[in-house]
């Protein structure tokens, strides 16, 4: 074998016209979706969470509109509790893509210093759910791209690529528009908006492999490295901002350095780390494939309200 990425010699270009690979077909489908929205929505926006799915979605958008920059801004609904490495990559990608970056923080959450330790579920509700609604209303966006995938969670498996929200952002799972072939109906009344999921049909492995084949920049936290960690309610977390942790908790936590990485990224006190030595993309993919627990397991959000947690959150307007 010629080094860790020998198979990269196989490019994304089609070799046999009659046989596109599944990644080529997924890419084409996603680009088609991005262009349909740009053509039919009045004011589209791309929700950018800085995670790996967002990274792939942004890369697809750059491909879809090349040589022009994507004809919509990036919106980051911030909680102020993200990893510092995420803020760094966010600002870098906005520069490189030539897209406008809008950062929105819910003023009420900011004023009340809402944090994951003192406020539990309210943290997600105010910063993310309410913050997103406020941001969409403030700028008058009528279509918002999100990087959700159908393989992530059961209620997402049934959500359309174009998912409609009422004027108060609610999702009605029983009243979704039929979606046939690759024909998307983007028409809507005033006040209504659409959430659009261009990578609905991608799996976690597809996302990883696409990142590798296309050299898509991702936050280094996905790769294992020695990092300061603490334990909280039986899970392992990274002390990304020790001073702030101490300020909020009113005490110093015992910090240990461990080799860790993250399978998903969110607010650092809410995102569980895994102990790992996987320092390259190939290692990460191998670990992902050999793992025996599902990706979202590290997130607290799906476990509320029993088996229907995500579905309930989505009806209320969570992405």
């Amino acid at each position, binding site marked *: 074998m010629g080094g860790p990425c020998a*198979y990269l010699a196989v490019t994304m270009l089609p070799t046999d016209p009659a046989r596109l690979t599944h990644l080529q077909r997924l890419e084409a489908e996603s680009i*088609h979706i991005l262009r349909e929205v740009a053509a039919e929505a009045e004011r589209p926006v791309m929700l950018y969470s800085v995670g790996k799915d967002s990274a792939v979605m942004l890369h697809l958008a750059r491909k879809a509109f090349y*040589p022009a920059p994507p004809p919509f801004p990036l919106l980051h609904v911030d909680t102020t509790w993200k990893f510092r490495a995420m803020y760094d990559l966010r600002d870098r990608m906005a520069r490189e893509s030539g897209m406008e970056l809008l950062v929105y923080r819910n003023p009420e959450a900011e004023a009340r210093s809402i944090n994951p330790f003192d406020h539990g579920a309210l943290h997600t509700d105010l910063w993310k759910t309410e913050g997103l609604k406020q941001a969409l209303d403030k700028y008058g966006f009528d279509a918002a791209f999100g990087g959700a995938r159908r393989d992530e969670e059961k209620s997402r498996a049934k959500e359309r690529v174009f998912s409609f929200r009422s004027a108060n952002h609610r999702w009605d799972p029983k009243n979704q528009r039929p979606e046939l*072939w690759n024909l998307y109906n983007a028409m809507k009344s005033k006040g209504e908006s659409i959430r659009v999921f261009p990578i609905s049909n991608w799996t976690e492995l597809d996302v990883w492999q696409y990142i590798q084949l296309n050299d898509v920049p991702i936050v280094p936290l996905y790769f294992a490295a020695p990092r300061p960690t603490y334990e909280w309610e039986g899970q392992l977390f990274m002390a990304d901002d020790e001073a702030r942790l101490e300020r909020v908790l009113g005490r110093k936590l015992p910090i240990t350095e461990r080799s860790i990485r993250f399978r998903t990224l969110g607010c650092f006190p809410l995102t569980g780390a895994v102990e790992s030595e996987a320092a390259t993309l*190939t290692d990460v993919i191998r670990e992902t*494939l050999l793992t025996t627990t599902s990706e979202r397991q590290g997130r607290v959000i799906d476990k509320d309200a029993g088996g229907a947690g995500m579905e309930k959150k989505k009806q209320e307007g969570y992405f």
Partner: protein
Amino acid sequence: MTAYTPDALIADDIEAYLAQHQNKSLLRFITCGSVDDGKSTLIGRLLFDSRTIFEDQLASLEADSRRVGTQGQEIDFALLVDGLAAEREQGITIDVAYRFFSTERRKFIVADTPGHEQYTRNMVTGASTADLAVILIDARKGVLTQTRRHSYLAHLVGIRHIVLAVNKMDLVGYDRATFDAIVADYREFAAKIGIGEFTAIPLSGFRGDNVAGASENTPWYAGPSLIEHLESVEVDAARDAAGSFRMPVQWVNRPDLDFRGFAGLIAGGVVRPGDRVRVLPSGKVTSVARIVTLEGDLPQAVAGQSVTLTLADEVDCSRGDVIAAADAPPEVADQFEATIVWMADEELLPGRAYWLKLGTQTVSATVQAPKYQINVNTLEQLAAKTLELNAIGVATIATDRRIGFEPYEASKTLGGFILIDKLTNATVAAGMLNFALRRSQNVHWQATDVTRETRIALKNQQPAVLWFTGLSGAGKSTIANLVEKKLARMNRHTFLLDGDNVRHGLNKDLGFTDADRVENIRRVGEVARLMTDAGLIVITAFISPFRAEREMVRAMMAPGEFVEIHIDTPLAEAEARDVKGLYAKARAGALKNFTGIDSPYEPPEAPEIRIDTTAMTAEEAAELIVARLVP
């Protein structure tokens, strides 16, 4: 059971594994069946056998199985796939859910749809993107009404690979005779609806027999397991790539004045720089300059790829147009026969304008009352005035402008459409174009370099259609003839189309029924339009008794070009003259459908010129008309 376990390769040689995964093709399929057929169980089994289920999911699955499962202490795979809370409570799958798994050779996307008749629209939705359909049958029950419905719907949306999955073989003791009888029964039915080939597999989703590998319980079955079969069938994308080049234009990319790219998903064929292409509906021909991507220009692109093309010439081309192979373009038309699946609670309103979206074109369209509705259980054709939720019917659709299209069986992209309610914005129907209604419109419009304007300038005159209408014997031909003589003397280029003369040639196949009279006038109108394009002053003398057809011809012409001249002679006067002896024959009953006698004449309400033949001579009438035309 034989489970798919790629683990060894992942651990030992991750690069080889990734290379294998990277080169997998994609197959989309749909599973059709009811709750009782074990559909969710089969999908759960596919996910389980392909190691798409993680330990934490398995743990909660085991807990759920004991709590609400229907399989006693055994794992209830159905719980894995029933997503929404409402569904889990009712124990049925309401919507379309998409599942993902992959084997060593392929990645699969499964559309899981409900089986009951009230969910026909959901099944059609799931089937629209599928290459293959798995029709589930309970071995204990055999071919049922729902089996026929599912098969018909799968065939209707153009799925070419049908798998008859005879499930629950464990409950009939893996009995070969039972399986053979079901297959024979199904074959007879399938042939009736045009399904020529299908693959029948005896299996048990619950036990795993013949799902991933050959089962020891069915030694008499030599065919492939379900997964083996799914791995080997040809996907539709391969078939699309073999056709002629077509790309609906999604987006015109203009970052600056120097770059003008046309972005779209290639629906058929292959494209290379230098290829001659035609832009529809305009018909302009140019060639492809570049295939532009972020990674650099491509030497070729194929069906299924999203690309951006630049063209060699500055031709008009915008979203909704179709760029196609110049020598094999799709048809362009505005009237179609279509098969329609109604998907809304509010029924179809024939004559109402809906938005029709096909490819990237959105146009206004009206649907006529259905020719018939299809009973999806018996496949009988029933008379219908409208289509209600989940009804399937065949009807004529007219669009407000010409669109590039192909029959659905040739191209799902250029033949499949949705209808959108203009008020509620809901997607109310999906449809498939069968064919364009008029043969004349199947012919592609050829753009010519010498234009109508050029020819008009050469003739140094304004073209017009002098449309004479009136009863038989009113004096139309006489006056028309005089008008043409006067214009010829003034060096005007004219052509007189006479009703009787045209019926000796162009229209000799037409009689005098209402339908034939309409067609007679339509053809004359088309000929007159061609002649005005040539720059001529056309004079026509036809009874043309119906207002609607005269208005149809008026609409064909440029504004102001159509001059309606009513040769107004009372019936009694025309009958008294009876130059050709026709009134006498009609009165005697020897001539049927004679205008004024047993077929109506609808006089013009506001003709440009009205000639009262009881008040002036033919010569005076001709003078008056020419004076109006050439002041």
